């Protein structure tokens, strides 16, 4: 869409009074792309040998000539208001499509002779001659219209084979200021598409050659209101052009267009109107960028990532607000740079990780153009089609139609409005305005951001483990081991959990149907304080062996830890159903709609059936955790511990329950029991840290977190908690070591 917008250009170039919305280069591009599918193939011009009258009065003559051309008088009698722009108006009129036709006439090998125009027998000859001459020595004789079109052609042609374009003296064309501006803007933009593979100097040289030949001043003129405070936004825009990297022309052309839109179409059309509604009187500049990001996003992202678009938009508005803070320190802060980068889509945030955008935002234009160019017919067809239906408000309709076609825009817009981004951006702006942030707030933000940046850089690119998908380690020395399961069991017994994980991964890679391999892997992960991986592994185990009680209990516990009540309840209920002894208690139809109270009642029945079964008390304890009846849960675990005093995971369960019911001192005792039985129990070490932290003993908590991390550096939760404790203990000096996950430094600083 961007390219089409660009080429068709809306009505920006139309002189007031013109009913058309096309423009010379649009027509030219259309012709260039190939117009054999046109339905209204007509010859409107025939080449004449008339030389240009250079007394400035040539239009009259030309008009006369044109009117006398066979066939042309029926199609488009020219209004003879005698002004120079007249020719140009016809020239840019898409309905008449003269330029395009001229081009066909000159260039098309299969010159259409349809509709009884065959009588123009002189044409083919002319066509031939011109074709021979055309690419290198364009024929600049003839009426201004032809001169201009062939001139522009030679400009366009110069891209083929990379022949530099040479300025050529031209007869005076009598272009109006608006015409010139239009040509200047368009050519500079289009040149960047034609010469996408050339460097900037070459492009500028080409454009300047063209412009100087046409006697167009390539300087930018001051047009339209341009309040100083939007210079920043202008800067973004220019930067955001990425590889297109236009000179001032392109950006200015756009700005200018928008300004003109506002003047010419401010009233009647909805699009411009809604601008004003949304953005107030001087909103156009910001809207310009807004529009920009919309267009760009539609093209390259195609609605695939709404969240990023919204984030981009939000940060854009934030950037806007922040940019008004004049503190130079703040202006140079990484934070602002980050925000503005993000607002331009150069950075996207995904799963709380920053990533550079995969494709440079606007760099795609060129590629897109190339695509359209290749599939030129579609483009041309569409263009022609729209030419037919174009009314005075054509461009607005077109725009609206485009928006409908690209459903994602609407989707995006809806999404966007639902988020009520504006609300908070305004809110933020208000707060800044009121000075509620206080003196240092900007620095504060910047610092926080810098901290976060460091954290992110340090963090491994490990996104949240997607639900239920087991993530294997990249490098695994146990692959190829003759009996990885046995090795894994051995390592697990020795308490080398991280090693055991690797061996067991090798086992399940070798035998994906090995339920015991998956189960032990899940347990190893749980003891290593990684519930996501534990759940993923246990789910694979359950797939293979749906009735394994240990697996079902483990899944129930892990989901409880993750606060997923419904899932936890489901697995705990399954445990009961598949139990050889208590299965009869559980009516199978109940599993469709589980209510906590019913399940709890069943388990209590079971516990009464066999009070000596430690397992039933364990499950009951987990169940009470789920309902946060911690006292009952503690009682159940204590009962179970009397039956199974050497179950280290049971001690940990007791400790965690006590910790969650703020009996931290008791919890630490229980954890210590667990650790005495299993010194490498990472989860218990991490839980120790949590208990100390929750009591406000941050220095102590740090030592335990570091200990846990030394045994399993992949325990992300512990890293996050460590960071919080460091900050609460005012140990910002160690923050960098934490962010870079430098365990050597941390262990030295915080020995246990």
């Amino acid at each position: 869409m961007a390219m089409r917008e660009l080429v068709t250009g809306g009505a920006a170039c139309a002189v007031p009074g013109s009913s058309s919305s096309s423009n010379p280069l649009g027509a030219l591009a259309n012709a260039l792309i190939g117009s054999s599918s046109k339905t209204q193939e007509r010859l409107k011009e025939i080449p004449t040998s008339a030389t240009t009258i250079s007394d400035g009065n040539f239009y009259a003559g030309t008009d006369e000539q044109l009117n006398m051309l066979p066939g042309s008088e029926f199609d488009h009698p020219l209004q003879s208001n005698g002004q120079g722009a007249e020719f140009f108006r016809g020239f840019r009129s898409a309905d008449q499509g003269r330029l395009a036709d001229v081009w066909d006439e000159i260039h098309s090998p299969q010159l259409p002779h349809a509709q009884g125009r065959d009588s123009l027998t002189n044409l083919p000859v002319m066509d031939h001659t011109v074709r021979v001459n055309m690419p290198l020595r364009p024929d600049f004789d003839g009426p201004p219209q032809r001169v201009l079109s062939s001139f522009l052609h030679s400009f366009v042609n110069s891209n083929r084979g990379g022949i530099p374009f040479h300025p050529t003296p031209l007869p005076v064309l009598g272009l109006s200021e608006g015409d010139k501006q239009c040509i200047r803007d368009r050519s500079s933009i289009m040149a960047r598409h034609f010469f996408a593979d050339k460097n900037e100097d070459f492009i500028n040289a080409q454009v300047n050659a063209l412009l100087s030949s046409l006697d167009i001043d390539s300087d930018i003129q001051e047009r339209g209101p341009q309040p100083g405070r939007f210079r920043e936004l202008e800067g973004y825009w220019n930067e955001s052009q990425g590889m297109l990297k236009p000179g001032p022309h392109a950006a200015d052309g756009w700005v200018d267009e928008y300004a003109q839109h506002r003047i010419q179409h401010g009233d009647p059309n909805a699009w411009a109107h809604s601008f004003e509604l949304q953005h107030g009187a001087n909103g156009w500049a910001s809207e310009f960028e807004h529009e920009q990001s919309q267009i760009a996003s539609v093209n390259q992202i195609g609605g695939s990532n709404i969240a990023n678009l919204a984030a981009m938009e939000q940060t854009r508005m934030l950037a806007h607000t922040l940019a008004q803070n004049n503190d130079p320190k703040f202006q140079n802060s990484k934070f602002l740079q980050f925000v503005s980068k993000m607002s331009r889509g150069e950075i996207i945030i995904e799963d709380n990780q920053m990533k550079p955008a995969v494709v440079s935002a606007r760099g795609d234009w060129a590629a897109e153009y190339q695509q359209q160019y290749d599939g030129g017919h579609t483009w041309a067809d569409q263009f022609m089609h729209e030419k037919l239906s174009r009314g005075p408000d054509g461009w607005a309709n077109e725009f609206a139609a485009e928006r409908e076609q690209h459903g994602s825009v609407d989707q995006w817009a809806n999404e966007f409005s639902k988020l009520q981004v504006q609300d908070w951006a305004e809110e933020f702006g208000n707060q800044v305005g009121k000075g509620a942030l206080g003196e240092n707030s900007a620095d504060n933000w910047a610092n926080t951001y810098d901290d976060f940046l460091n954290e992110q850089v340090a963090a491994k690119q490990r996104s949240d483990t997607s639900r239920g998908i087991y993530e294997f380690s990249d490098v695994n020395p146990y692959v190829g081991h003759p009996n990885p399961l046995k090795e894994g069991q051995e390592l697990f017994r020795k308490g080398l959990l991280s090693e055991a994980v690797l061996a067991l991964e090798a086992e399940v890679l070798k035998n994906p149907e090995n339920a015991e391999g998956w189960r032990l892997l899940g347990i190893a992960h749980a003891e290593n304080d990684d519930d996501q991986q534990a759940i993923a592994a246990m789910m694979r185990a359950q797939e293979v062996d749906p009735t394994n009680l240990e697996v079902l209990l483990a899944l129930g516990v892990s989901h409880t830890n993750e606060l997923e009540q419904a899932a936890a309840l489901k697995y705990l209920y399954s445990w009961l159903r598949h139990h050889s002894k208590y299965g009869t208690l559980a009516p199978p139809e109940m599993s469709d709609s589980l209510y906590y109270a019913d399940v709890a009642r069943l388990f209590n029945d079971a516990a009464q059936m066999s009070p000596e079964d430690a397992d039933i008390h364990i499950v009951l304890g987990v169940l009470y955790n789920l309902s946060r009846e911690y006292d009952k849960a503690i009682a159940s675990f204590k009962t179970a511990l009397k039956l199974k005093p050497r179950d280290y995971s049971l001690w940990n369960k007791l400790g965690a329950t006590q910790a969650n019911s703020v009996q931290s001192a008791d919890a630490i005792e229980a954890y210590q029991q667990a650790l005495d039985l299993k010194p490498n129990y990472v989860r218990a070490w991490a839980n120790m840290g949590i208990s100390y932290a929750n009591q406000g003993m941050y220095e102590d908590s740090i030592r335990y977190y570091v200990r846990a991390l030394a045994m399993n550096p992949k325990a992300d939760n512990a890293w996050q908690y460590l960071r919080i404790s460091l900050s609460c203990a005012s140990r910002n000096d160690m923050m960098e070591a934490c962010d870079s996950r430098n365990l050597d430094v941390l262990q030295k600083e915080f020995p246990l």
Partner: protein
Amino acid sequence: MAKSTQLKSDALMEQMKLHLSTDAGKQLTNKIGLVYQINISPKKIGFNEESYVVDLKKGEVKKGPYDGGKPDATFSFTDADFLKVATGKMNPQIAFMRGAMKIKGSLSAAQKFTPDIFPKPSKM
């Protein structure tokens, strides 16, 4: 519990309630002394919100909107995002920029809302 809500955050709020009765929790109350209202939606901000008031003046957590006037700051989250912020998985500023956290009220009050005010859940 299971009947009333399925929000994961509910568990954390419950723990916060208990936490505020401990010494550490009382220190927190003295340190911050502000009232936060937190609106949590299951999937999408603004839909089916549950409100919690974390009153760090009185040291209370209550369900339902604040009835003592205007809270110092009101936050809106989805369930998952609130947990991420509260457990240190997501930085509040980043959450704000992503629109994962919406703020009303005093921004200086909002800036005191950091992950460390919530207790960390222990794992079985």
